[in-house]
């Protein structure tokens, strides 16, 4: 019924606009719905060296969302033979101030899962933290590097599986919220 009411209002609006046609054709500033659509623009990977406590942050950022300008991606450059604690942060930087989406993902940890896939590097990702049902979640994880070597990649994906999350889910299951690939160099 609400829709009907809205439509009636639009009809009325059209009629008013008809009357106003010849007086003004100027582009008016339309009142925008403040209830904006959800947008994830940024993924931050924070690595803390467990030995030195030094932190490094690497970012994938596409502030204007899909399309438009191309995203910017940092290259991950980390020390060999070391262990890091990885913490992921997800943001919407299309608005000011930027919105931190991480708490929302944590709240729905039972429907979400991070995946880490490494190729061509000595980096290994393990020890993903669990959700409340003891299924892997992955907001935090342990990154271990071996010997220094040629550049490789790490793909980080966040899958949304409302009501479907189960043990041993492949990366292909669920809807993709995030799927980014960073270049990795262990040196």
């Amino acid at each position, binding site marked *: 019924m609400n829709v009907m009411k809205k*439509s009636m209002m639009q*009809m009325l609006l*059209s009629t008013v*606009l008809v009357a106003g046609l010849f007086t003004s*054709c100027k582009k008016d500033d339309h009142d925008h719905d403040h209830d904006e*659509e959800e947008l994830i623009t940024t993924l931050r990977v924070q690595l803390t060296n467990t030995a030195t406590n030094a932190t490094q942050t690497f970012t994938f950022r596409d502030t204007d969302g899909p399309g438009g300008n191309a995203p910017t991606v940092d290259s991950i450059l980390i020390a060999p033979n070391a262990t890091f604690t990885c913490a992921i942060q997800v943001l919407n930087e299309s608005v000011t101030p930027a919105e931190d989406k991480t708490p929302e993902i944590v709240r729905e940890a039972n429907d979400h899962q991070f995946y880490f896939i490494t190729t061509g590097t000595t980096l290994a990702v393990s020890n993903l933290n669990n959700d409340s049902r003891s299924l892997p979640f992955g907001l935090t994880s342990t990154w271990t590097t071996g010997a220094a070597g040629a550049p490789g990649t790490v793909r980080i994906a966040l899958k949304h599986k409302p009501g*479907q999350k189960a043990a041993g889910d492949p990366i292909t299951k669920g809807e*993709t919220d*995030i799927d980014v690939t960073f270049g990795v160099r262990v040196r």
Partner: protein
Amino acid sequence: MRALWKFIWLIGVVLLPSVALEAQCVLSVEVEVKDADLKEPLPGSTIQFIELKKASFADKDGKFVFRGICPGSYTLKVSHEACEPIILHLHIKKDEKITVLLPHLQNHLKEVQVTGYSASKPAMNATTVKGKQLDAVKGSSLAEGIAGVTGVSLLQTGTNIYKPVIHGLHSNRVLILNNGIRQEGQQWGSEHAPEIDTYIADRLTVVKGAASLRYGADALGGVVLVEPKLLRVQPGVGGELNLGMFSNNRQMNVSGMIEGNSLKNPAFSWRLQGTFKRGGNARTPNYWLANSGVEEINFSAAAGWRGEKRGIEFFISQFNTRLAIFSGSHIGNVTDMFTAINSKEPPDFIRNVGFSYQIGRPYQAVSHQLLKIKAFQELKHQQRIQAIFSAQFNRREEFDVLRFQSSSRAPGLDLSILTLSQDIIWDHFGSNKIKGSVGMQTAYQHNYYQQRFFIPNYDAFQWGAFAIEKFNLNKLKIESGIRYDIRSFFNISDNSGQRTFTNRLYQGLSGNLNAIYSLGRGWELGALVSSAWRNPQINELFSDGLHHGAARLEKGQANLTVERSNAAQMHVAYRGEGWEIEAEAYYKNIQGFIFLRPTFPAQLTIRGAFPAFEFAQTNAILRGLDLTFRKQLSPHWQITTKGALLRAWDKNTEDWIIQMPADRAEFHVTYQVASSKKLKDAYVKAQVQHVWMQTRVPATGNIEIPLPNGGIQFASDYAPPPPAYTLVGLEMGGDYQLKNRSVTITLVVSNFMNTAYREYLNAFRYFSDDMGRNISLRLKWPFEFSTINKSKKQ
């Protein structure tokens, strides 16, 4: 099911007509069929000698001569799609010439005149769906309603979004006229279905090719006219109740109409109409399509005052729909898409969803309002001036899947467009030799968006002037039109002011010449040559962003130029001796043909790589053939064969053009049941449709397809076209007499064999099968409150 077969078998055996015995008979009977109101011949009328089991179609002059008739008494039945059938009893002793006047179905003199003399519709190249044919498709979408016309196919997005494709062209290239007004919404989108309630229509007409310049030059593919019944002229109050039930998605349609004409003031008439539609998830032969429901609430009102010399008419309509988008089509990125395609069927958690009326995300909510005011003044010497004003407001909201429970409920895309237009037309129809219309149209549009950017805010101005004349030179009929248009886009902006857009101005001339020559003995030859153009639309110029429900980016090309189509269409037709044959060939040379081209590489986003497309131009050649054969085997049996072929060639890349309908053929057998007191005009029709696999697609393209061995192959599409399929359909209907009222009952079974298939032009063919068996039952119940009419009934 067994009972149904038995029923069909019984009809076949019991009522199979016996072969007529012919004696030494030499008489001839010439039957001429004319419209009772207009006194114009009605070609294509069916003329039947019931006792002799002889039947034929009237030729283009509305005539047919039966020879070798024995002296005696006969029953002659004459029928035409648009008219009430007539039954005559004849005593034949010598050669006879009979003229039969068929009353028009609505018995609306004015309506007949309108289509008879105005240039609103070309006399030629038009195919109309009306009467029983329309009864069998009412309540379905507009595109499904005209899908039976040869040369028309469907562009589908799942099971509830359909767009008409005429000769391979659609969207911006097909004009839809709703009650004489150009339907203006966001018609550029392939998943933006026309916002039209088919219950409004009294007839649906398809004009193939640029045969009509009355509404704009941009209808390179054709025009679809949705024409409501004219307002009531007999005093009294009456109406119609329509019910529709569909088994597949458990859809229920209710549509009611009530209309009246005042006895005290006979010039005044009115009508109110409303429709409610609700359907749930559709089912393929093997599983339910999660989230594929539909909901529609429509309303219209019309009032008119029609004097001797002048009249005015008001029409408002409102269309509101919510269309669910199949869950399995919602993909995150290119990788997800390949996962979906490679698994062939939707994943288990989607397949295991059962039936539901619930419309969940993603879905579209679209509303369309129309206000029309039309006035006319008759002048001397059968001339008339018409002024038409219209206002339309279209709002399209597209809701994506919620990322989090706490996410905003706002739509991802929210587009609003207001269109105001006015037409002034001078019609002259006094002379038998020359009739025509000259007119001018102006329109203003204001488009704005909220939420995500896809197309910019803009204003548009359109101006057009046309002249269309029809010449009747006995055996030769000529219709010719010329038109000049100016179109501009200005005040183009995006909300954040980040992008800059420049104004656009286009202008051009279009013209056509249509000639039909009667060769005699039922043969006719027709030719249409046309040159029409279309300016690039706003989405083709400036779109930039994410497409709804699909991880797909589209980017406009600001420097596109106009698209011009130079086309020739030829047809040969024969009507007579129980045959009706029509063959139509067309050739369109489209310079600057605008199409979506996948770009390389796919575009990087935070959700992974997205397939990206940009608009590009090429020179295209579209050639095709539409064929119809109809044979009246006996007064009861009729067979029809139809076929449509299309070849679309890209001259620049020397390759086929993607996304064109595959070749198709149809075969129908109709049995006309003998009318009884209770049941009139009943028929049973069985049909088989075969659609070939589309093999004419570009050999290579920009899309990287990962191979099982880890390699990459470049292709023009994400998945190859689906294989050929054959569908069987069944239809039966008739008018059942119930207390003086004739209730029309139609039962249609589509995809009778519950075949699992995928249609190439269905955007969701990557993800799931098409709809399985669907049994629909439609009832049309006319009612009448007035008592005045009874005395002079028929």
